């Protein structure tokens, strides 16, 4: 059945909280839910399972770590991903490190939800895509579902898992719609999806970048370029094998990421491709990312720095048709 992205997340939360009484959820304004993803949970599960918290991110992330000691799987909703920054100590110093530092004694079954990304004139403090920062911490998983079906399946995997996972959701009014299976399914971590098969160039699209990338692939098709589109789905763990297999086939790689360019997921993947598929490459590995600036508010300025269909198609043309471009 076709469902909206937010609805898919909502269903995963409902089903997992129904399945396992040890799943608890808290965060700022989760009872009424501005994004809609936690709507109805309070009415169903009550204050012992889901709770509105004060605005105190530094405490919330720390409490997520602490509550696991009592055997709970904590789902923490951080609203906009920019608010991860105000809660960053317990993320970077505790969550990402304590398992190792306690000699493996501490289990940290934590799922953190946060909406990311720009494109809606929310200005720089509500538009970041902080996955590169999280990837660099080492001890946390990073999931970035691009479709409603993956949102549901990956969230279930996160909640059934034993490790801290950041589940970054595409911000926006309910997200796009897509088919969501009816059965109780999960989507494994570390397994990329091939969204479109092609021979000429591999486009690796992260999270929300899937949509403009598929549109660019269509545009390229009309120009006689057959693009393969890979959606990594999780960045930690990363399905290197699928990416490398595709690049070895096409000989060209472009990574599309809405993070700022410097030390982005795109630059990380580019490094892996250059390292491990060097001999298959017929040209440089390219990145389509946001320049190293804060997201401006004005729609025209935001559009200037935001990756789009045309920019992605042009990057491919520059690689494959250097003269024409």
């Amino acid at each position, binding site marked *: 059945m076709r469902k909206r992205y937010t609805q898919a997340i909502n269903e995963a939360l409902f089903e997992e909280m129904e399945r396992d009484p040890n799943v608890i959820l808290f965060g700022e304004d989760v009872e009424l839910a501005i994004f809609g993803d936690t709507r109805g949970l309070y009415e169903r599960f009550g204050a012992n399972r889901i709770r509105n918290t004060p605005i105190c991110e*530094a405490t919330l992330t720390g409490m997520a770590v602490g509550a696991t000691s009592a055997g709970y799987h904590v789902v923490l909703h951080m609203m906009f991903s920019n608010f991860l920054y105000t809660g960053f100590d317990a993320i970077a110093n505790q969550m990402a490190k304590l398992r190792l530092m306690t000699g493996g004694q501490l289990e940290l079954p934590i799922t953190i939800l946060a909406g990311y990304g720009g494109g809606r004139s929310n200005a720089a403090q509500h538009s970041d895509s902080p996955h590169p920062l999280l990837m660099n911490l080492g001890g946390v998983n990073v999931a970035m579902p691009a479709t409603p079906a993956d949102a549901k399946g990956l969230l279930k995997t996160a909640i059934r898992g034993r490790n801290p996972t950041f589940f970054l959701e595409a911000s926006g009014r309910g997200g796009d719609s897509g088919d969501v299976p009816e059965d109780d399914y999960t989507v494994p971590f570390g397994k990329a999806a091939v969204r479109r098969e092609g021979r000429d160039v591999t486009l690796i699209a992260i999270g929300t970048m899937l949509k403009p990338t598929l549109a660019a692939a269509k545009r390229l098709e009309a120009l006689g370029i057959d693009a393969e589109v890979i959606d990594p789905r999780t960045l930690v763990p990363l399905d290197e094998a699928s990416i490398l297999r595709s690049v070895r086939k096409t000989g060209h790689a472009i990574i599309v990421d809405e993070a700022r360019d410097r030390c982005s997921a795109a630059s990380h993947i580019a490094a892996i491709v250059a390292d491990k598929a060097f001999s298959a490459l017929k040209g440089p590995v390219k990145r389509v990312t946001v*320049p190293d600036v804060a997201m401006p508010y004005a729609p025209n300025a935001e559009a200037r720095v935001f990756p789009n269909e045309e920019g992605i198609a042009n990057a491919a043309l520059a690689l494959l048709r250097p003269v024409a471009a």
Partner: protein
Amino acid sequence: MALYERMLLIRRMEEKLSIDSAAGVLPGAVHLYIGQEAVATGVCMQLEAKDWITSTHRGHGHYLAKGGDPNSMMAEIWGKRTGICKGMGGSMHVADLSKGILGANGIVGAGLAIANGAAFGAQLRGDGRVVVCFFGDGASNQGVFMECLNVSTLWKLPILFVCEHNQFSEFTRAEQVTAGQIVDRARAFGIHTAVVDGNDVAAVWQATGEAIAVARSGAGPCFIEAQTYRIQGHMEFEKELLAGGKYRELEEIASWRARDPIERWARSLLGSGVASQGKLDEVEARVLRAVNDAVAFSHASAPADPELVFDLMFAGQTP
């Protein structure tokens, strides 16, 4: 009369924004200050031009009360290059350093530490400046509030904390997430505190006068808790976002409308004979002209210059 005109300007500017937001023509989200005007106005009318303020995501009122230009605020919210931040910040980020407005902020609680730092700078410079930090009841639950009370008390910083208790953090009632009375947190530090009716502009003005005198004398920080009410939603468009979800009753909103700070002040001005209805009408006409001018200015302005993004990121350095 000056208090009246300033409050009315804030109200009419925001009513216009509310209409435009409902029509879906504004680029981003707006958080309106309607119902709280007496706080920003009563406080800022006690300040000197050199004094600084920090503000919140609900910052239009603070900006206008401190003397920010309505034209460049309107243009900012419309994403124009004539905006006070050149269209780079928008509604949640209006700032005018030349007027002592260090900026609205999208991060709840961020203004607290920025104000503390500004007060530290002012103290080191010995320039007699006072810094006012506006923040909400929701923000008072950030740990940084306690940290700032501690540092500012220890170092006797010239800062006035103004907590605007408007009863809500987004869609959550204050009593659900805020333990005790916020003023008691400040009292624990032994500093000058006051609790005022935030819908009574004269009371706010008076309490601020006393607090500012303390802060300017070098005796250290002060704290005011202003009790008020957010008449509009947390943000415009909230009905659509909440899809029927409800967190307060219409009767409650109506009961606070009956305590509207602007009408209340108008009645008081008329009652005491300070102003006639004719004078108030003149003010109304002047304010409406200012709002229309701001709209016209904004509409006549060109969109933001996208290339500026690359110039503005660093001083003298490309990103």
